[in-house]
């Protein structure tokens, strides 16, 4: 007698050898037993051993030699074959559950294609900087479906609680999921109804834990996040990637922003930027991204968070300059090309 473990059910296969008869008839009793209960429930059904062994194509002689010890896998195979045969009338719910659970738990190691393999609808860079009164963040409103710019009004900057602002690049649906997690987090924080509230540092760390744990399950949330805020006069700006890499800095960017915007910020960022200077700096970076990042769209929002609160601007466009000579007459110097 031994046990097959399903997810919720223990299958105990006990074989009874009936009284001395010329022809040894064994019965396999299949019972289901909940994982935590100690007494077995009544048998689901009794199966005539002969018919089971028919599946194995064993002769009568082998009954005796086999006795009770079957190889685990082969018995599983027996059960699967047997149960799938007997599924319809005799067995009802339990056997169905048993068979399907056996299949999923014991046999399949593939078939878990519920994991994130690649992103589908993505947002491009987010840039964040600290300035005199708080944090400024900029992101465009594009959602690309591969190389197509499919959605042009995606809000990628959102408020989190009283003190924080989050901006996301990467898979938009995963961002929406993250917003749900954060919503629940802030809800529970508010439900305490004491004077305390989660600040940007706490939210950033929470997100780091979430992203890192998902990465460990090989099922990441395909985003790079920028988290900024002000609490009790303390400014905070941090970033988390989809594999859980996190850090804190005076200016952060995701995606292409790392390559195109941060060099500008390294040169021109200062501790005491005013709001206007900060916006100009961000617009300079966004314009650069607009020219050079193919997934950027010319419709952006800038968000500001200070001790007083948060404002996300209405969407607007940047002025761009395309009047270069080479653009006007692109085929000059290479006749016949287009």
């Amino acid at each position, binding site marked *: 007698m031994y046990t097959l473990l399903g997810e919720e059910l223990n299958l105990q296969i006990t074989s009874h050898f009936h009284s001395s008869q010329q022809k040894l008839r064994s019965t396999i009793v299949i019972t289901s037993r909940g994982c935590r209960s100690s007494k077995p429930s009544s048998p689901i059904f009794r199966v005539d051993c002969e018919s089971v062994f028919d599946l194995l194509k064993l002769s009568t002689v082998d009954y005796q030699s086999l006795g009770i010890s079957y190889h685990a896998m082969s018995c599983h195979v027996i059960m699967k074959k047997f149960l799938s045969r007997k599924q319809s009338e005799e067995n009802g719910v339990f056997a169905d559950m048993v068979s399907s659970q056996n299949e999923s738990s014991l046999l399949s190691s593939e078939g878990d294609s519920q994991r994130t393999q690649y992103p589908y609808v993505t947002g491009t860079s987010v840039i964040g900087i600290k300035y005199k009164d708080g944090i400024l963040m900029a992101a465009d409103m594009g959602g690309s479906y591969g190389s197509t710019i499919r959605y042009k009004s995606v809000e990628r900057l959102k408020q989190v609680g009283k003190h924080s602002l989050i901006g996301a690049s990467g898979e938009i649906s995963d961002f929406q999921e993250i917003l749900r997690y954060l919503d629940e987090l802030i809800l529970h924080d508010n439900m305490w109804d*004491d004077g*305390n509230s*989660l*600040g940007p*540092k*706490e939210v950033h*760390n*929470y997100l780091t*834990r979430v992203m890192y744990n998902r990465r460990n399950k090989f099922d990441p949330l395909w985003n790079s996040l920028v988290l900024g805020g002000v609490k009790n006069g303390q400014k905070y700006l941090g970033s988390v990637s989809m594999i859980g890499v996190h850090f804190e800095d005076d200016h952060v960017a995701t995606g292409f922003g790392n390559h195109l915007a941060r060099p500008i910020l390294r040169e021109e960022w200062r501790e005491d930027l005013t709001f206007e200077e900060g916006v100009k700096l961000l617009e300079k970076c966004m314009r650069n991204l607009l020219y050079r990042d193919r997934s950027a769209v010319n419709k952006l929002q800038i968000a500001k968070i200070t001790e007083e609160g948060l404002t996300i601007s209405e969407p607007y466009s940047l002025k761009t300059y395309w009047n270069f000579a080479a653009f006007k007459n692109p085929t000059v110097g290479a006749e016949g090309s287009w």
Partner: protein
Amino acid sequence: MFRNQYDTDVTTWSPAGRLFQVEYAMEAVKQGSAAIGLRSKTHVVLACVNKANSELSSHQRKIFKVDDHIGVAIAGLTADGRVLSRYMRSECINYGYTYESPLPVGRLVVQLADKAQVCTQRSWKRPYGVGLLVAGLDESGAHLYYNCPSGNYFEYQAFAIGSRSQAAKTYLERKFEKFPESSRDDLVKDALFAIRETLQGEKLTSTVCTVAVIGVGEVFNILDQKTVQSLINEFEISGEEAPTNESAAEQSGGDAGGAAPDQGGAAAEEEAAPMDI
């Protein structure tokens, strides 16, 4: 206590609407040796009396560090106190891991109170027989809470629990109005005085009491014996005069920090029974 026919089970109400088992649990707190706490705007001090069972044994630990910013003093069943301290440490560390931030004291205290309440509503459990004075510092300032076995919690400026705590409470009631502005050292002195009140004439030495402090710029730490003894000597030696009345003591106390408590303490010693009991 009187025997009641409604006191067998914690889940049985009495006709008067009382849960006797819970009240008996609170009695257990009163049996434990005294623990007191007091706070200012920036510091909280915990102090307790350590009575060893015999001269041969060491005394029981009644003050536990829960985190850098939270400590607890217990009175009652020490074993229950130890278990609850472990729970508190676990909660603090988990919060710190997820949020990289110290757990706000008020939240820890509510979690503790909810845990205690569960035991008052299950027939197979009993209430915790320990009262906890939780001292902590967070963003909203310094806090001192008292957690009952009943699952109630209250915030205090100063409080005392355990046996003969009434004496300490009386002392604290006289002094508590100046606590918010007290310095750290004054707070410790007041704590030691309050402890002495509970000793009812026995000599206060550092072997008998434990003091712990938490405050701005100071993580929760238990003062070592030498420091405590030197503090005791400091206020016992100075101040031999007896105050004629309490108002005089209060007035001079306002100006000269430790002078008034010294006088009050000296007076108590002279009027009380001889020191060598």
